[in-house]
């Protein structure tokens, strides 16, 4: 996505990262519930320089029909990046990466959504990455949870997500694009804070067994911070002042 700069200092002697953050400091996160007129639920998130829009439809009839399940509703997720969202133009057709991320996000949301209440129906989650800057899957999952809640779909919990990682032999919270490209490890974590369950977890990069445990822990704690912002976004829409 971005170019790599070998001379860039990822972590300076004062423990400050390339974008001025401390090791356990997330980027600026702004979540807005609602915003789309036609979708049953929607959310918009700015997560650092990521800008992601999510629309939710359903529960509604399943097309094609053979996909429907008589025992439960089904969840369908499409994660899609706009051609202009990254440095070099991305071809608009879904890439293998986008197909995998769609699946991973779907499986991260499934434990949260009470699909069994709506047999023979589908809930569709459309994620559009308008601008990408590292950590899109976590930002997308965070926004998708808010959009599902905004659609009024019964849920057990919301999934909050953020990546932890390793840069200059240090475990950090919220990996940005530069740290993802030049760092040592990236671990996206999706977590349901009330149910204490990890529903999305991936890793690439080398970690010792101790670093592995710490990385999971830093990610889970980061999700708890994101969770508060998700709740605030919903609160602002439904209980906030109209002028906000």
């Amino acid at each position, binding site marked *: 996505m971005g170019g790599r700069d070998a001379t860039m200092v990822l972590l300076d002697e004062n423990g400050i990262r390339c974008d001025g953050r401390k090791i356990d400091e997330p980027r600026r996160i702004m979540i807005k519930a609602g915003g789309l007129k036609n979708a049953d639920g929607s959310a918009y998130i700015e997560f650092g320089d990521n800008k992601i829009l999510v629309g939710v439809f359903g529960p509604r009839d399943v097309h094609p029909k053979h996909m429907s399940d008589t*025992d439960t509703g089904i969840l369908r997720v499409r994660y899609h990046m706009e051609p202009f969202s990254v440095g070099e133009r991305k071809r608009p057709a879904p890439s293998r990466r986008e197909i995998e991320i769609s699946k991973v996000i779907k499986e991260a949301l499934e434990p949260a959504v009470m699909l069994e209440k709506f047999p023979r129906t589908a809930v569709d989650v459309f994620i559009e990455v308008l601008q990408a800057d590292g950590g899109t899957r976590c930002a997308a999952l965070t926004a998708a949870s808010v959009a599902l809640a905004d659609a009024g779909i019964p849920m057990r919990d919301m999934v909050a997500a953020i990546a932890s990682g390793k840069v200059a032999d240090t475990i950090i919270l919220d990996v940005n694009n530069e740290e993802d490209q030049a760092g040592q490890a990236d671990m996206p974590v999706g977590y349901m804070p009330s149910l204490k369950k*990890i529903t999305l*977890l991936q890793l690439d990069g080398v970690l010792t*067994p101790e670093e*592995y445990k710490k990385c999971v822990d830093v990610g889970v704690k980061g999700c708890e911070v994101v969770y508060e912002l998700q709740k605030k976004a919903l609160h602002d829409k439904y209980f906030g002042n109209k002028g906000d």
Partner: protein
Amino acid sequence: MTSDSVIDELKKAQILELLEQGKRVDGRTLDEPRKICIEINAIPKANGSARVYLGDTQVLCGVKIQPDKPFPDVGDKGMFMCTAELLPLSHPTVETGPPQAPVIELARVVDRGIRESHMVDVSDLVIEKDKSVVGVFADVVAIDYDGNLFDACSYAATAALLTSKTPTWEMVDDQPSVVEGADKPLPVTTIPVSVTMGKIGNYIVVDPNGDEWDSMDSRVTITTDSDGNICALQKGGSDGFTQDEINQCGELSIKVGAKIREQLKSVQQESQ
């Protein structure tokens, strides 16, 4: 493999009932992988190859090594790529046509495990910087399905790479040309081992077989390297894990992986 029939529900109930007594359907302990059989050089025309049986799951990997143009931003490194595919003869539900999400995930997870371990030393695969590099392609096909293709494909690719012989090229008239009689083993730095664990109810089982695979609530695939470090992970399936379970799976993958690594190492030694 996805739709639940009444039979599947009954099977799942039986699997859970056995797990409550500390048993598995095929008599293994919870942290015991199935028997792994590795046949190397199954395809002599490939630069390296391996057929792997993981219980009744059977996969085949062929490695092709050939000169290629480098990626524009990394002219000082060779290329490594691993793919995985389900052949239509491997299971009645597999259809021909473009790969579906589960197969794309399989291929990407197998590739990521080996890639992130830095097993193949790509900096040693340059013929002429920015002009010509060596590409290493490990293509895995699933021939017979009985659960856990993630690990079977990973072992096949790893075994094939460990026993691959690469030709040597030199630049003649700006074109790479093979140097006769200069074949050598592929430069490898570590042996990655992938261990997949399924969660059925509250039980974690290593290397789920086909019936367990259909019954499990979620899974996690963890790849470790020769130093006992964790280098890749993928969670899948429609349920979550607690933080304790994720830590436990990390420890299991190191312990179980170490034994499997010994088997891969002996395959490598026999080939030399």
